[in-house]
Each structure stands twice: as structure tokens, then as C-alpha cells.
């Protein structure tokens, strides 16, 4: 018998926002259903309702003909629903096996933990997915991708009928994404109901069978993936045609003098990195996660110590002792991890946007609420951040909108920047806004800014950058320019060099 999960008239409101409005559709077993929509469309909210984290205001969920309600995530899990979020929910100090079998650890006849059986059972699951992970190592020592696999195996072990993914590929590299997709395929073949949320359309066309489009909390349409194409989907999502993302960018073609000159830079995490960035130039940094790209930037920004080598900025030898020095000199860094290093989740949008310029906004010891409001409002407008007002705390924003707050923070007119470092700036951002961000980056270059653009999405690095630097294991392993027409393959090849 075919199994299914049906949503019927689901509604959910937050103060000032109608996050979900009369959502109805059905997801069937043995197929992967994509859930797409702009930032703030309500995708994550729907998954949280599915996982028992939030209760719907209206509507019901029907699992295989029976209405289900979940009082908590644990309850939902017991009833066969697992949601895998971008942020891991594993216990880093426990082993892989212990994380996969929480609360269900096998006991021997003395009632003690049966380590041997635990290891064997775990090994079985790991083999089922064709991985080579040691069941005994602490989860915290695994790569982000493998941690995610552990979460999926945990859901699998629970015999969940429904497994949903919320933007799972954002922290993964291309090879890791392949592994994930194999995983998803395995789940599908095992007859699970799989829901998949992502802003990366290429992925959606690669692995899903059906697409549900949402807009402003409403259901727009369901289509079979095989019967549609990217343009149609984007149009349904954004409400307009966006054309060819990269070809339509209006670029800067005149570079100025050297803005940043890095010579043999070494920090605790990178070794002997050299490159030059001109005013008006966009340098893309490509490489696998962990290649050391962010670490180069942290060293330049004064966040990590420089062990050897030197760099000059804006014609001056630079020796930044702290990020403050770098900011004062005119460098802005949008960090990759928005929750750990970027946002103050419990503060308002206003506080978050004005944080780096709070000293500039007034000359006395007091803050300047009027200017703070003004720059917050301009960030909200510039990036169309979906929020009722600037007082909303960032925790309550959707993932993509949180990312926009960070971008807004560092591109506010009061930040006196010459060099903008963007570390994975489009993480979790919807297609329409992505294009606006690319154009914004090009516009900044035209105004004479130097831009460093780090991304794990190769198409994006290739599409936006004038120069591409490829890193692997803390070293620069290759560089190429736009004129050389780099391809994903050519860059990937450089990223694997030692």
C-alpha cells in the first residue's frame, strides 16, 4: 500500500506575520518532494509543525489515512517523523554509535551496555549507506558532512516513515553532496516519504520527483519535476522572470591600484598564502570546506594571529591586532557561520545592523536611536528583509533573512569600507535575492571597492569573480581568471591538488 503524508489547510501566525496560510498538499512514499519558496515563505515553519516543534493554528496532518498531532519533537519522532535541520542536533562528545541509538542502547544480560552489539548494529546501518565511518569515534571529530550522515542514520534507525531535510547541502562540498544524494536515494528506494527544502535549483532537479512552490505562506502549485524547468519554477516562486543570472550582471572592467597585497601569509591554519587584490576587483576563493579560505580572511581581519608573512592594505603595511583595527582601516568581513560568528540572535535587527558603527553614529557617549533606525530601515529595504519592523529579534527571522541582516550590516553607508570580504554570503538565500546580491557585489566593485567572495558553490564563484583562487589544505593550489573561462571541472581539479 502506498504511504503518504497529507497537509490539509495548515495555518500558523506569529506576531505581525502570517507564516502559513491554508497549506494543503500530499507527499507520497518512494518519492522525493521539494519544498521551495523565497526567504520567509514559510518552509521551515511547515517543517517545524511537522516535527512537533510548533503547533499549527489551523488545519491538520494526515499520515496514511489517520490524522496525527504531535505534542513535541520526541512525540513526532516516535510517530515516525524525523526532520533534519542544518544545525546538528547530535551530542559531540558521544560516539557515533551512541548518537545513532540514543535511548535505545542494547543491553546485555546483566543490564549493562552491550558495546559489542551496539557496534555491530551501528556498523550494519553504516554499511547500508555505504560509508566508512568508525562507530566508536566521538561525533564531534567528524566532518560536518559526516555528522549530517549520522543524523540521517539516526532517523533511519528509528524507522521513520517521513524524513525531511531543511537546506541540508549548505555546509557541504560537492563530493559530500553526492554522498548525501546517494543517501536520499537509498531512503527513497526503501519507500520513505522524503521532503527536501533547498534554494539550490540544480539540486532540486537532480533528486526530487515533485515540487511544491510556496509564496508568502501560501501554497502556489505542485508540479512533477520531470515536467517543468528552472525558469518556470523561478517564475512561480518569485513572480517574475529573472533571466540568465550571470550573463545579465553588469560588471566592472576597470581595476585600480593594488588594495590588498598578501605575501607568504601563515596563520595557525593556513600556510604561505600570497595574492593581490586591486580596487574594483572581485576575487573568488574556491575550495572544499576546510580548505582554509575563511582562515586566510580571519588572519587578514585580525581575528586570528599572523604567524609569518605580511600584508599591506591600502598602501600601508598592515598589522591588525584585532578586528577593530581592521574595521577602522576599512575592511568588512561577513563571516560564514551566521549563528556562531555573525548574528546576535537575541538582539533586534536594528542592533545587529548598527553594531559595527555604533561608535560612529554619535559623537557623545550616547547612542543615536534615530540614525540606528535609519540604517536598519535602509538595510531592510535594500535586501527586502521580511519583517514587520526593525525591532524584531533576529532569532525570529527565517534563515535567509538572518543572512540578509549580516549583509545589510556590512554594506550600510556608514561602514567606511574599502575591502568587503564575503564568506558564503548566499548561504540560504533565495534565487531572486541571490541575483540581487551578485549585482550588488558588481556595483561595489564599480565604485572601487575590492571584494573577496568565498563560496562553496562553484557556479557562483565562476559567475561572479574576476579572479579565482583555489585552496586546499591551507595552501593555494591554483589560480585562474575570468578570461581563461574556468569550468567547474577545471577548478575542482585544482581543489584536489596538494
Amino acid at each position, binding site marked *: 500500500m502506498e504511504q503518504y503524508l497529507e497537509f490539509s489547510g495548515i495555518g500558523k501566525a506569529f506576531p*505581525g506575520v502570517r507564516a502559513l496560510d491554508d497549506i494543503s498538499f500530499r507527499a507520497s512514499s518512494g518519492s522525493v518532494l521539494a519544498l521551495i519558496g523565497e526567504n520567509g515563505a514559510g518552509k521551515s515553519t511547515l517543517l517545524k509543525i511537522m516535527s512537533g516543534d510548533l503547533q499549527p493554528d489551523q488545519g491538520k496532518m494526515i499520515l496514511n489515512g489517520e490524522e496525527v498531532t504531535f505534542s513535541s519533537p520526541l512525540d513526532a519522532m516516535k510517530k515516525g517523523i524525523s526532520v533534519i535541520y542544518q*544545525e546538528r*542536533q547530535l551530542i559531540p562528545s558521544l560516539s557515533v554509535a551512541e548518537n545513532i541509538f540514543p535511548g535505545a542502547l542494547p543491553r546485555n544480560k546483566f543490564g549493562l551496555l552491550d558495546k559489542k552489539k551496539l557496534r555491530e548494529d551501528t556498523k550494519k546501518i553504516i554499511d547500508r549507506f555505504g560509508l566508512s565511518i568508525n562507530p566508536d569515534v566521538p561525533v564531534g571529530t567528524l566532518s560536518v558532512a559526516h555528522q549530517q550522515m549520522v543524523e540521517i542514520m539516526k532517523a533511519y534507525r528509528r524507522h521513520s516513515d517521513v524524513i525531511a531535510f531543511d537546506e541540508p547541502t549548505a555546509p557541504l562540498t560537492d563530493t559530500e553532496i553526492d554522498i548525501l544524494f546517494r543517501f536520499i536515494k537509498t531512503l527513497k528506494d526503501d519507500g520513505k516519504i522524503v521532503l527536501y527544502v533547498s534554494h539550490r535549483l540544480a539540486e532540486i532537479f537532480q533528486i526530487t520527483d515533485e515540487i511544491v512552490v510556496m509564496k508568502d505562506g501560501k501554497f502556489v502549485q505542485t508540479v512533477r519535476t520531470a515536467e517543468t524547468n528552472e525558469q518556470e519554477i523561478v517564475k512561480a516562486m518569485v513572480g517574475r522572470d529573472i533571466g540568465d543570472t550571470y550573463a545579465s550582471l553588469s560588471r566592472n572592467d576597470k581595476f585600480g591600484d593594488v588594495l590588498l597585497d598578501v605575501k607568504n601569509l601563515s596563520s595557525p591554519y593556513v600556510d604561505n598564502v600570497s595574492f593581490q587584490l586591486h580596487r574594483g576587483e572581485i576575487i573568488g576563493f574556491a575550495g572544499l570546506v576546510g580548505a582554509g579560505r575563511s582562515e586566510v580572511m580571519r588572519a587578514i581581519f585580525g581575528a586570528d594571529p599572523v604567524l609569518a608573512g605580511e600584508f599591506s592594505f591600502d598602501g600601508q603595511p598592515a598589522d591588525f591586532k584585532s578586528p577593530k583595527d581592521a574595521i577602522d582601516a576599512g575592511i568588512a568581513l561577513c563571516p560564514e557561520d551566521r549563528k556562531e560568528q555573525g*548574528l546576535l540572535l*537575541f538582539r533586534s535587527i536594528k*542592533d545587529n545592523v548598527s553594531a*559595527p558603527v*555604533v561608535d560612529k553614529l554619535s559623537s557623545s557617549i*550616547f547612542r543615536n536611536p534615530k540614525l540606528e533606525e535609519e540604517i536598519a530601515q535602509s538595510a531592510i529595504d535594500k535586501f527586502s528583509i521580511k519583517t514587520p519592523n526593525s525591532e524584531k529579534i533576529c532569532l525570529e527571522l527565517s534563515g535567509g533573512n538572518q543572512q540578509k541582516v549580516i549583509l545589510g*550590516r556590512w554594506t550600510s553607508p556608514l561602514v567606511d569600507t574599502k575591502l568587503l570580504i564575503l564568506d558564503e554570503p548566499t548561504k540560504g538565500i533565495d534565487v531572486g535575492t541571490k541575483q540581487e546580491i551578485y549585482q550588488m557585489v558588481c556595483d561595489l566593485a564599480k565604485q572601487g571597492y575590492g571584494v573577496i567572495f568565498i563560496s562553496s558553490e562553484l557556479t557562483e564563484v565562476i559567475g561572479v569573480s574576476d579572479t579565482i583562487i583555489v585552496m586546499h589544505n591551507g595552501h593555494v593550489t591554483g589560480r585562474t581568471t575570468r578570461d581563461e573561462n574556468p569550468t567547474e571541472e577545471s577548478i575542482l581539479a585544482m581543489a584536489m591538488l596538494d
Partner: protein
Amino acid sequence: MKENRFEKFTKSKMFTLLILLVLEVVVFTIWSGIKQGSNTYFTFKALTTVINTMTVPGFLAVGASFLMISGNIDLSASSIGAFAGMFAAASIQYYHFTWWAAILVALVISGAFGFFNAILVNEFRFQPFIATMAMSSVVKGLMSFVSMDPKAAAPVATTITLNPNMLDWFGASPTDALNFLGKKVFFQGQVIEIPFNIILLILAFVIYGVILKKTKFGMKVYLVGGNPMAARLVGVNPKKISYILFTNSAIMGGIAGVIFTSKTLQGSSQALMADMFTGLTAAMLGGISFGGGAGGMGGAFIGLLITRAFNQGMLAINAKSFVTTAFSGLLLIVALTIDFASARSTTARALKGV
């Protein structure tokens, strides 16, 4: 969905706290009425006591609040306070300092202890808990040196009793200075004199409240407490803030200690013993998060009132002292539970929120 100011206020934490305070007063009034035959709680005399016992834990709460908002804690403030009180008494009694010089030096030394706390935490990377607990012990030891009477045969003293009128400017007794600053308020047909130190305390709460909410520094305190890593990346110097706040906490402790001495005309090694506890409870009851980044001075003030009203209530119902101690602990547990529960639900949301 615009809501007016009143509606907004009724949904605020402040409102909940006020309700809690009122409830507490009502419960103790009735309880004491039942137990003692008549209301011994909601009286003029009790109010005077509440006010008179508020200042010392109050100043500790001010210092603790700021530190806690920035994500730190100082357990040594009360010992530093006791030291400062003892020092002030000794320097007046044995070395004939004038009162203001005695206070000034006591506060400078307090500040130095706080600065040292900051060094331990920032440079040697000790847990603030451990560092300040060790500091507390060191300070208590040093206190014995200070309290020695250079001319006496058995020099170590646990208390130094001062001649009246030596510290009267600060004191609670109606003197010239008090008549000048003490306001007269009518209550139940009687006159209550508000001592100068209470005015100082209220001033401190107002000033620190303004610093927190309106100044650049205050914003940075919140940023550091909310997410030190992110704060550093937007150009805030968490170390600098930590130095300032540890020093400040110790000075607040010093002020509390000096006020204790001026009120009791005594320097005592037992001074401020229970007050650290009260100060921290007050701050946490007022919504200042143990984890940092949240809360404000208004809440802390109401938290202070709640703890004082509670202690007074225990007196009014004639509770045995061990019962009072146990219930004070319970109050702290309640405060911590509120803090953890809200922190847990918010961090849980933060973890899952995508």
C-alpha cells in the same frame, strides 16, 4: 497589528515581576495576619526595615547585573565589600583618616581587587567562578591584617566599633546631612525619613539603567554577553569590557561595604555575608540571564524588592532562621529555573531555527 503602550507593558517581563511582587505582599500580609492575629507585615515599621536593608545587597546587585549581562560573574564582591568596610573603619579608628579619605581609599583598593579578578579571567583564562571564589578567600585573609589594632596586645579583631558621628554623612540616622538630602514621606499617618544611602542606591540604579539602555557602552555590554565571538568581529573589545565590569563590580561591593560600616558604625569580618546571595538572586529574579545578553536594571530593582519583601515576610510570619535560609535558597532556585527554562527554550529554538 499595532498595540498601544499599555498593552505592550502588560506583556512585558516587568509587568509579570510587578504582579509577582504584589502577590507576594498580599500573601505575606494574609499569612502574617493568620499567624500573628493581626497584620504585622504590611506596616510602616516593616517598610522602614525593607528600605533600610535594601542598600547593601542593592549595590551588589548593580555590579552583579552588569557583569552577568556581559556573560560573567563575580562571587568576590561581598568579601571585597567587607574588606572595604573594615578598611574604612580601621583607617578612621587607628589612623585618623577623615571619613571621605577613608571611603576613597577603600574604594580604590576595592577597584584594584576587581581589576585583579579581570586579569585572572582574561589573561590566565580562569573560569570567573573559580577566579572570584579564590579572590574572595584572599580578600578575607587580607582583611585580618587590616583589622589589626597597632597598639593593642591581641591585634586581630573581627570587628572594629567606631565612635558615633564619624561616618554620619553616609549613615541612616537622622543627622544634618540626612535632613538635607533625606526626603520626608507620609505613610500611614507617620513620617518616614528616607536615608541618604537609599537615594544613592536609586541613583545608581537609574544611572546604570541609562548606561545600559542609552549609551554605546551599554550596547556593547549586551553584544558581548549575547555572543562574544560575533561582538569581537564587529569591532567590540570584549576584554576591555570585562576589565571595566569586574572593576566596577568590586567598586560596587566596596560601596556596599562602606555603607554597611556607616550604618552599623562597625567594620566587621562577618559583614555582607548573606548579601552576595541576595544580590545575585535579585538580579536573576529580575530577568538578568546567567548566560548573559539579557535583562535590565529595572527588572533587577524589582527583583531586589521581591527578595527584601520576602525576607521581611519571613520575619513577619516569625519563621525560624534556618527556615528563612532554606527558603532564600528556594527563591534562588526559582530564579535559576526561570532563567534556565527561558534560556533552554530560546537556545533550543536557536538551534533548530533555520
